């Protein structure tokens, strides 16, 4: 087990470094001259020279990469070119919204998917099962941003129950929660469609096994057998997908924040693109990629917690 943990941790760190190198290369080597990209073709030579100095573009690439990584490790992502404040400040300011959205989205996804997936498996080949399968097939094909628009059309434009977008700030807790309901649902429904299918097929597989027959022979209720015996054993493939989905959800927040005009990291990225603010884009892309890689790492650790057989094997 210790060996597995060590190997996985090393590979996690190596992956982060490779990812940072890719991000750095795309953002600093591909454009040729980042200063020119930022200021545009009509920039004066003096302005270009000043920006090159500010971004330390005259140093060798390796040195700049080293400084960027070293800074990032200490939480220093440089200064936003357009906002004129440290990128880390912008991130700290907007992170709570993005994280709340991602986590509430994940919670709703998992609850919906487990209830629908286990329910479908319990009613295998009956109407409920077909219904869930149909909805999940459809859900996989519906883009989250279109679902958002439909939800806004129904709940904001027609029924006027919820705001169509925007965010009043955390100082108004009720308004903040109301503002997050539609984005959360839009984010979760599509992911839940995928996860419900995985849950269903994984549960069906477990339900065929001998130890489920043992549990039934012990007179446990259907619900107990499903939730206490089938579900924990069906979790292993589910956790894999949840890990991948958390990654999809985090990047999904980028889309959803733009649909609902929510001032989170996703909006910030797009403002930075519009402002040609390369240092901010670079930091934010790295941040999102790091969240994805970390999510995968945590999933591997979760396996160990779920399946005692893995501990024995590794």
């Amino acid at each position, binding site marked *: 087990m210790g060996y597995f943990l060590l190997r996985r941790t090393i590979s996690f760190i190596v*992956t982060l470094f*490779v*990812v940072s190198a*890719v*991000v750095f290369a*795309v*953002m600093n080597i*591909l*454009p040729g001259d980042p200063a020119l*990209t930022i200021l545009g073709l009509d920039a004066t030579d003096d302005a270009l020279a000043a920006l090159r100095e500010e971004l330390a573009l005259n140093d060798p690439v390796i040195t700049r990469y080293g400084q960027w990584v070293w800074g990032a490790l200490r939480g220093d992502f440089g200064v936003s070119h357009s906002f004129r404040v440290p990128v880390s400040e912008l991130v700290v300011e907007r992170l709570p919204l993005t994280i709340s959205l991602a986590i509430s989205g994940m919670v709703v996804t998992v609850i919906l998917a487990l209830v629908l997936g286990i329910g479908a498996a319990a009613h295998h080949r009956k109407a409920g099962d077909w219904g869930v*399968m149909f909805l999940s*097939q*459809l859900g*996989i*094909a*519906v*883009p*989250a*941003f*279109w679902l958002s*628009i*439909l939800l*806004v*059309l129904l709940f904001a*434009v027609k029924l006027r129950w919820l705001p*169509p977008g925007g965010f009043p700030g955390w100082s108004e807790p009720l308004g903040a929660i109301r503002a997050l309901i539609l984005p959360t649902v839009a984010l979760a429904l599509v992911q839940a469609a995928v996860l419900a299918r995985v849950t269903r*097929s994984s549960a*069906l*597989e477990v339900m065929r096994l001998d130890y489920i027959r043992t549990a039934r022979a012990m007179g446990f209720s259907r619900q107990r057998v499903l939730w206490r015996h089938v579900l924990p054993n069906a979790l292993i493939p589910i956790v894999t997908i949840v890990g991948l989905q958390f*990654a*999809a959800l985090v*990047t999904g927040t*980028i*889309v959803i924040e*733009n*649909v609902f005009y929510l001032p989170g990291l996703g909006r910030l*990225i*797009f403002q*930075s*693109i519009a402002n*040609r603010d*390369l240092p901010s*884009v*670079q930091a934010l*892309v790295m941040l*999102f*990629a790091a969240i*994805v*890689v970390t999510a*995968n790492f945590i999933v591997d650790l979760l396996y160990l917690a779920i399946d005692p057989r893995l501990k024995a094997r590794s």
Partner: protein
Amino acid sequence: MTRLPVNLMIGAVLVGLVVATAALSLVWTPYDHTLLNIRDKFAPASPVHWLGTDQLGRDVFSQLMAAARNSVAVALTAVFIGGSIGVSLGLLASAIGGLVEDIVMRLADISFAFPALLFAIMLAAVFGPSLTVAVVAIAFINIPVFARVARASANQIWTREYVFAARAAGMGRFAITRDHVLPNIAAPVIVQATIEFAIAILAEAALSYLGLGAQPPAPSWGRMLSEAQTLMYLAPQLAIYPGLCIVVAVLGFSLLGDGLRDVTDPRLVRER
């Protein structure tokens, strides 16, 4: 004669519909999809404009048809480029093995850290948003997917007797890869390509919606939706049609892919 699976048939019909529409739009649409007619803006559906017109009086039906062409073209290009590179890498990894295989597969693992959206964001920040950026980003995420499929299938082929026979006859690794491995991994690669097609159509729509893909006036379902969103109170119907088109196209390709997998790999026929 076994009956074809239902998902395969429904998928084939939907895909046929989308591809036929895209092809037809090359030679005929009811109107030029870029033709402005401000006096006739927000026209309701009628025999003149089958699905009405948008805020600039452009015919919605014609735009949807042209956007189908755009969608199919982007998906085709991106999946073809990403697939070719990915399959080549996978075949290379399988043929050489050892360190090369390890490195290729590790890189494939790592590249999963970059969803298409993040990659498109980087490219858009550097080069400015364009349809090319979307195509490159979608192609890029396809590389590791195809590399894995190709390597896994190729590794199986390498254990077959006819490959041993070819090696015994002195054929080189690359000749064997060309003559024996490649033709035999075609089925799983085509199945994967069909499924990736669905994902590519979704990705293009999302990127264009966010302004990272097709730029006005290029036709795109995603871009139409982003324009319609600002007009939700005036003309909610404009936000419906393009979404339906996306769903039909994505559903078609994903059902077709599932169906093809059921047909080509009977071991994998899942519990339905």
